[in-house]
């Protein structure tokens, strides 16, 4: 590696280091096959590093980097579609928000820790059951902490789609938690609907 490339690598890694953990989480959650995380991240990093000269210092590196990772996840999920959860990919932008049982939700809101302390795997499963686009939007918001506008730019979808699908994904996740809590008696006695 010549000195110029070494400087480029140092700058790139300096930008990337603070994001490594959340990119790992994002990748593991968004991939159909989580054991592909390292491969996907390596490909995304290689592509991003190749294009790093095009990155303008001072602009949003996080969003820039997430685009590469998101694209790589999309490619990998398509390739592994034989194992993928049935996915609506890009189409379900205008589906209505899922109904959520407000009575049961109230019991969850009163004591969320009781349910969530038992639900790590349930959360993971619920996320995997989302469509690919819903999953990415939810994870970009929750893991990447992106604004709706940034998510729309990263995924190249309208901001209305982001808002609609985020709401739907959130409700689906809550429904999954409620079902699990109800089935396992985690909701308060007498509150089961």
């Amino acid at each position, binding site marked *: *590696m010549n000195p110029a490339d*070494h400087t480029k*690598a*140092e700058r*790139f*890694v*300096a930008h990337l*280091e603070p994001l*490594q953990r*959340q990119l*790992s*989480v994002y*990748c*593991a*959650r968004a*991939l159909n096959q*989580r*054991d592909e*995380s*390292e491969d996907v*991240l*390596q*490909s995304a*990093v*290689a592509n991003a*590093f190749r294009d790093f000269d095009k990155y303008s210092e001072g602009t949003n590196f996080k969003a820039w980097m997430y685009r590469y990772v998101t694209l790589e996840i999309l490619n990998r999920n398509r390739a592994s579609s034989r194992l993928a959860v049935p996915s609506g990919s890009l189409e379900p932008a205008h589906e209505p928000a899922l109904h959520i049982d407000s009575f049961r939700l109230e019991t*969850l*809101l*009163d004591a*969320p*820790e009781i349910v*969530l302390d038992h*639900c*790590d795997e349930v*959360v*993971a499963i619920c*996320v995997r059951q989302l469509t690919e686009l819903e999953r990415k939007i*939810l*994870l970009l*918001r*929750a*893991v990447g*902490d992106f*604004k*709706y506008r940034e998510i729309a730019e990263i995924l190249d979808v309208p901001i209305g789609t982001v*808002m609609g699908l*985020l*709401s739907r994904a*959130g409700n689906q*996740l*809550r429904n999954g*938690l409620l079902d699990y809590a109800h089935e396992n008696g985690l909701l308060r006695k007498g509150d089961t609907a």
Partner: protein
Amino acid sequence: MKCHDARRYWDLYHDSEGDADLHFQLNEHLDNCVECAEWFHKQSRLESLVKERLTANAGEGATAVDWSRILNGAGVTPVRRARSWKMFGSLLTALAAGILLMIGLFGGFSLDGSPNLAHLSAEVHQHVSAGSLRLEFESESDIDVDRYLVNRVPFPVRCPPRKDSGFAVRGAGMCQLSNQSAAYVVGSVDHQPVSIFVLPKESLNEFPELRLILQREPMTACREGNSEMVLSVFDKNLILVIGNIDRTKLTRVLKSYGTYPHSA
């Protein structure tokens, strides 16, 4: 705005999305509707817990990722500087203890000889921001930080609600400011380091000059070196918010801290 309308927009409110007018109307409604304020708080709490699960526990697939291998495989040579810092981690911790001791023993004093809390807390803030004072606890999770602090200080300390303050937490620690125990929560607002110091209200007895100022002006602001700071007493605590950013942003953090129910 009616309750039904307000609740329709809670997710926009929670995510700090939507236009300013919507937030103004929602804030106005929440100021006047205890039920909705409680409902919003519960919703935000659930969201925070779900987010915590999503970010902190992605299973073995995430934790098994080897970034040095990824970087090498991608043709990027990792920076040695980062490793050097890790090697000197324990040294930094020892140094940090020394710095805190120095600040505690020889920190700022006012002209009348009483300790100057602004100067003391600004010193800690600068050291934490510069990395010369290592955080006792590092986490980007508000809940983890809250949990870390709850059993370590005898007074209530919490991260301010992120949606209102724009404060992204990075970690926390404890220190002595003059002879007073203080907890600090460190993070950023708009990517600029900001520290929140929390002391029991009674500690104002150690800082009589400041107590007089706060009696005249319950939410006061000052500048210490390059740092702006705003401070006030909320409930049982004295809160200072410090950062090298616009004072209005610090005030927003301070106010949002003050709106947080300590009993929750």
